[in-house]
């Protein structure tokens, strides 16, 4: 975490610090338990492969959650005003997931100091997993 970013120092085009993580099957099990999403495609390798998947795969909401952590690491907890994503690809154990958060707008609205960002999560080869936008109160 460290110090959270200050409004006066944010400019359009700035990027939040990158978070990177190698996805493991343990991550999937932990997220299943933490979220209550026990779809077996995320933890049962036997069932997933018999259904034609190469292996178990990550929860979309894990990807969104991990990307959300990149947002709050940067601006501080409780400062996300809006956060939306589209899920575009599955994530697989062994993939390195890398966050990208780019400032697209800096504005004041009814006394709130807001920063708009484009945000995405991709693997090391640049394949986009989730793509979204957020508004942060900085």
């Amino acid at each position, binding site marked *: 975490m460290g110090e959270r970013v200050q409004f006066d120092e944010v400019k359009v085009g700035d990027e939040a610090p990158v978070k990177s993580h190698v996805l493991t099957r343990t991550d999937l099990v*932990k997220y299943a338990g933490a979220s209550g999403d026990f779809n077996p495609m995320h933890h049962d390798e036997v069932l997933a492969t018999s259904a034609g998947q190469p292996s178990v795969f990550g929860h979309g909401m894990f990807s969104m*959650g991990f990307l959300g952590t990149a947002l709050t690491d940067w601006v501080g907890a409780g400062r996300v005003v809006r956060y939306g994503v589209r899920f575009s690809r599955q994530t697989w154990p062994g993939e390195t997931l890398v966050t990208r958060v780019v400032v697209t707008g800096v504005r004041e609205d009814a006394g709130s100091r807001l920063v708009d960002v484009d945000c995405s999560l991709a693997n090391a080869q640049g394949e986009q997993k989730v793509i979204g936008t957020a508004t942060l109160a900085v």
Partner: protein
Amino acid sequence: MAVDKSVIGKSTGRRRVVVERGPVAVFADAVKDTDPVYRDAGAAAAAGHTALPVPPTFPFSMAHWGAFADIQPDEDDDASAGMGAMGQVLGPLLAKGGLLLHGEQEFEYSSPVRVGDVLMGEGRIADVYEKVSGNATMTFVVTEMTWKHDETGETAVIARSNTLVRTSNPPT
């Protein structure tokens, strides 16, 4: 096949939840968030929070952890009608072997969610639409869950989910 738009606006039910400290810390761990504000009241206070905050996507899992039976509102008929309507749209598609996918998710915060809060969620079907592309048809259902602080009625967060079922079109 035209999609049934009559379900738009129907209720998908009400849930009352309590936000507890343990689940929030477990959830923060699971999304790789090590910020002490989710675990340590002193750290939360030092960062200006009146109670422990929650990670931004935690509302998606609030009902899993905190919708205890003894705090639920009385069942309303409207809600079961709404869930039935959702099944009416997606059920036949799934029965045909359609693939259910979570397409989009959004959270819109009006006020913070914190440990100790009791929230009432009211769900409704916000939209239903269909896209045909090549040999597949995608049927989308957008649901919207509005979580309000139970005591004050103040909106905390609106969670919007876009769920879709992809079915193969018959050859023409």
